[in-house]
């Protein structure tokens, strides 16, 4: 369970109470494939825009 430092620990007057989130709140599924898909799609979109601009501007 993650311990979230509070403002009291840092010497500041705290105003936000610390809430320790349960596991569902910190659900941290791997996103690597999604990031890769984003980069691949951006490459495809950029290539598509380049091709279309060359095709219609020729």
């Amino acid at each position, binding site marked *: 369970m993650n311990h979230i430092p509070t*403002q009291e620990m840092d010497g500041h007057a705290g105003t936000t109470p610390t809430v320790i989130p349960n596991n569902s709140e*910190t659900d941290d599924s791997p996103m690597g494939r999604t990031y890769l898909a984003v980069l691949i799609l951006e490459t495809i979109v950029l290539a598509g825009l*380049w091709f279309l601009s060359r095709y219609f501007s020729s």
Partner: protein
Amino acid sequence: MHFIDWLIITIYLIWIVSDGLKRSKGLNAVRGYFLANRSLPWWAVGLTVMATQMSAITLVGTTGQGYTDGMRFVQFYFGLPVAMIILSVTLVPFFYRANVYTAYEYLEHRFDVRTRTLASLLFLLSRGLQAGVVIAAPAVILSIILNLNLTITILAIGLPTTVYTMFGGVQAVTWTDVKQMVIIVAGLAAAIVGLVMGLPDEIGVGEALHVAGTTGRLLTLDFTFDLNETYTVWSGMIGGLFLMLGYFGCDQSQVQRYLTARSVTAGRQSLMLSAFAKIPLQALILLTGVLVFTFYLFNAPPMLFNTVHDQQMRSSPHMAEYEELNSNFLQAFNDRREAARAAAAARRMPDPNGIEAADALFQKRDLELSHIRDDAKALVIEATGDRSYSDVNYVFPTFVTTQLPIGVVGLIIAAILAAAMSSIAAELNSLSTATVIDFYRRHFRREASDEHYMRVSKMTTGFWGLTASIIAMYAVNLGTLIEVVNRFGSFFYGSLLGVFMLAILVRWATARGAFWGLIGGMTSVTAVALTSEISFLWLNVVGAIAVFLVGIAISAFQPSKKPASS
């Protein structure tokens, strides 16, 4: 406009406000009002992220830009997908696990209350002014296009938005944004269908785009490296990357969106929706503008799209000169139309020389028409003294209200309102959050009941809605103010990004380093902006790097008083 179009707009406004207001049921805690109790699904958060970023200025300005300049503006967004990935890996889990309401609250955890307060103050100033501009810009255009009183138009946009945001909180903002995105996309689709159907029967879309392509409007990628040029691949990939990191990572109006997600993964997925969809959507909006250009190749456009100036010129001492220009314009349009038809027909023949000759003639006729329009614009500037005159933002609304069928007009005007209201709602909610959490609760009333803070939150939302509407009423008379306010964003985002970079990347960075780094960053950006011609996109890079370097330098000469918290 026809009665049915007004009915559609009225139904839209009533539907959106009532949908927003019903979200207020059971809303009795600040955590629900500002963060929806972290209960929202990733797709709803993703759509509200997109709706918040896409204001009416995007819808009417970008289409106008596509009409006059073509597709180049899409490069502005090339850094966005990488920015979304970086934020998903870094700031999203940081903010989520820090259990904050605002991005700037995290800065107090990491540095001190002074840095938090300065950052939040900069946000309030920047976003507060921009909220007024987001109302003013479409209000001016719609009041002219629809022949409405300007003040009433401003209030018609600002008041309903304020009401449902004030009572419904972030739940209202999110779920109305979802519906408004659907309306925006439906409106765009309807416009594109209308544009394609408006071409002559013998001219295909491909042929029309080829003709438009001879003017350079379909050129999308510019690989030249020129710091003074705004729209290039490099300014978009690098300058745009920093802008998007600053905006989506450090602007409360966006940060608050993904803080409402059910989990860290849902928050990340919401940003991935923008990463996937933003560039294609932006290309579609620009293409709509290009299609408006192809439409007006074969259907007579007005010489000036702003009818107010057109009427002013016809009753001014320059009337005779203006009428002559208009007559020349009509003749030049006829010539260009014939040349466009010939250029399209030439492409059906296997004769490259014929195509080249037809294209050259079309380009000549297009240039002649452009020169007459430039002369008309110069005449307007001379007659009115308005040096910032431009009718680019009136191109798309003029096309919609004069060329599309009944019903479709109402849908697209509703889409423009939806784009404005979705952005404004998120801004008002985030302004209220920063005001209550970073200032009122932090500095003035530290212990009070949730009921008290709820009351204050609603009041501050109403306050910011009223303020934005008043700013809009003044902003409409100060054309350059809109530009100044928008460019202030460039001063702000890069510098604030630099502070967060210090917070996350440099564990020994101190509070003093962060505070004076922020001051140094904004000073550097101001100096560069005033003494050079570099594009504003690069100012984000300047600000981030300046804050980072100044912060490191000051921190290096000051021992850290506490361990850095993650």
